[in-house]
């Protein structure tokens, strides 16, 4: 197994230019568990880390990952390089395939996240960001998503960065900032055996020891705020998903959405102010030009040199202060985030409608 995976690594290094675009992400069970462990332990602060894997025919196979340092004090690239060298020495080889971040409540359209992903995608075109929401585990759902920036977005902002402006190209819609890449979970058969083994109920074989162990566990749980539960009872959380009370989540989502809308409204207002100011200045400019044109015609009749059409000393020819100008990226991301919240709310509502109607039907049947 080891030799075949290193063979893959070599093949893909040779053909890295010909790699097809990533159309799905296949997350190995170990990588998934490591991401979850890191994101959960880092709560409430944000956790980020690096995904290691390979692009095999358009499927990004993420085999492993490692955590980034919590306080990033500048030398993160040397940390990453040392880590990757150390991991390679023990047989964990793989290219950098992207990164992961814990993002509570699907707050993905932040400038930081977009900027980091932009850098990643420029360096490694097939890289993705895997976002995981540790807060969703309470309702028994695995909130895992892989995202990449759309080609249109990449093109737009690479030309914008080169030209120093962001006003070029076709209009970019807020819904087209990110492309979601479907995530699939992959489990090695031996890992599956391990999982089956550790989650198998042991009570039958050690019925006597079970009671004392349970007592120990209870004591431990009380002492330990970590709320870790023994796994021997099974990993089943089907029933957790039937929780009817979604009030807290709805509340949080609504609050986030209204904050986002407020932010958008502020951006719109400042955009309008800027636009109005710009319109006034444009009128002043055209008035000035009209006056100059008449003046120049007169001067030509008198055989004098024409005056320039632009007078930099006037206020209307000075560039507007950048602060007054709304960054297009800000507006775009703000709209995109509001869109994401709306979608999330839709999912949440759909799930809870189902459960509520089920509950009422059950009640009626009784």
């Amino acid at each position, binding site marked *: 197994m080891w030799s075949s995976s290193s063979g893959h690594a070599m093949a893909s290094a040779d053909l890295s230019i010909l790699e097809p675009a990533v159309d799905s992400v296949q997350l190995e069970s170990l990588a998934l568990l490591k991401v979850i462990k890191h994101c959960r332990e880092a709560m409430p602060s944000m956790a980020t880390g690096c995904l290691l894997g390979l692009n095999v025919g358009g499927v990004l196979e993420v085999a492993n990952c490692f955590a980034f340092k919590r306080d990033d004090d500048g030398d993160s690239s040397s940390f990453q390089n040392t880590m990757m060298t150390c991991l390679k020495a023990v047989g964990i080889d793989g290219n950098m395939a992207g990164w992961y971040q814990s993002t509570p409540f699907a707050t993905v359209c932040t400038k930081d996240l977009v900027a980091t992903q932009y850098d990643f995608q420029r360096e490694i075109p097939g890289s993705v960001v895997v976002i995981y929401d540790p807060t969703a585990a309470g309702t028994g759902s695995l909130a895992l998503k892989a995202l990449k920036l759309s080609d249109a977005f990449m093109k737009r902002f690479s030309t914008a960065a080169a030209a120093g402006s962001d006003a070029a190209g076709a*209009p970019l819609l807020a819904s087209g900032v990110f492309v979601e890449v479907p*995530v699939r979970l992959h489990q090695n*058969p031996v890992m599956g055996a391990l999982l089956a083994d550790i989650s198998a109920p042991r009570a039958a074989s050690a019925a006597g020891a079970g009671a004392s162990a349970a007592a120990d566990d209870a004591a431990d749980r009380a002492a330990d705020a970590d709320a870790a539960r023994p796994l021997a009872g099974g990993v089943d959380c089907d029933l957790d998903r039937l929780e009817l009370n979604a009030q807290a989540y709805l509340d949080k989502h609504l609050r986030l959405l209204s904050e986002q809308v407020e932010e958008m409204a502020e951006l719109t207002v400042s955009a309008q102010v800027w636009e109005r100011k710009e319109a006034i200045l444009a009128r002043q400019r055209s008035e000035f030009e009209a006056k100059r044109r008449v003046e120049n015609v007169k001067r030509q009749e008198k055989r004098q040199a024409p005056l320039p059409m632009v007078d930099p000393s006037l206020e209307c020819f000075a560039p507007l202060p950048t602060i007054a100008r709304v960054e297009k990226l800000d507006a775009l991301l703000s709209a995109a985030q509001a869109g994401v919240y709306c979608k999330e709310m839709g999912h949440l509502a759909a799930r809870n409608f189902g459960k509520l109607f089920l509950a009422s039907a059950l009640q009626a049947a009784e």
Partner: protein
Amino acid sequence: MATDCIVFDDSAPAAVHAHPVVLFSILDHFLRRPAGASRVIGLLLGRSTSAALHVTNCIPVMHCVRGTGIDLDPDSMGKMVELMREVDSSEALVGWYSVGGAPAAGAEPAPAAGAGGQPLLNDVAFALHEYFSGMATMSDCPVHLAMDASMATDSLPFAAFVNLSDSLANGGLALFEQVPVTVVSSEAERVALDALAASGKTSKGSAAFAALSEAAYGQRSGLRGVTAEEAGSVSSGASRGTVTGVPRDLESVVRGVTRLATLLEAAQTFVDDVSAGKRAADPAVGASIAEALSAVPRLPAETVAKAVRGGVSDLVMTSFLTSLTAAQLALSERIASAVPLA
């Protein structure tokens, strides 16, 4: 004798709580072992609480057995420990692990008889334990987690040991004591493991294990009472591993309800059987059923209907609000793209 001093030795952990990520990591390390190696080792990291030692992380270590000696690379090991501390300083070195059981190249496969395929402890373990105990940053009483991945039986046995020998009293003799290991997981990990387990539900019991050991080692060592075709059908799927999507919202509700229905049905069948005299009554099961029933509040239909109505209207309102916002967003986006800003 020696056991008397063990009881009062409070530095030794009473129990080990292993987190699933550690077990997955060490097994992954084993699967990626260099060609010809039959054992992998590494360091364990974790936190110590009053009740148990939580093993939460691990660091693979490269080693090489040469004759009677073992080659290790302390430099890269130290570097890795340092890197891990930079990520999370709350995790300390608490012990080491070894995973063994792959038949050595050319050797006969281990006989499937006996409780485990191979003994979990051997001479190398004693030497390595001595070495790791001597590390500067290692805890006072390191734990040795040993796993047998030979799959000679229908399980992957693992156990934790501590060395309780008092080197002065015993003249350097090592005395390994087994410490109970419990696999514990957080809610978030359980959710993930559940998603993974759902993918593997098609393979069954010992047939799966036999096929797995075959897939892993290319030999038919632990095939016991399994027909060849049955094993073959599992192995053809198993050798590639299983792939599943992330469970979707409504699907998971459907699954939950189906599961609830199965459980209720099982309970009902049991009760019916007992009352019909077909099965002996079990007081423990009866108590559990009574407990479960008493957990269900007896609410008047009116109250339930009201609660459901309230929930539904909350949801309708939020759906309305979000749809309105989404529509506004789409509109403003279209307008903005049609009439670009000056």
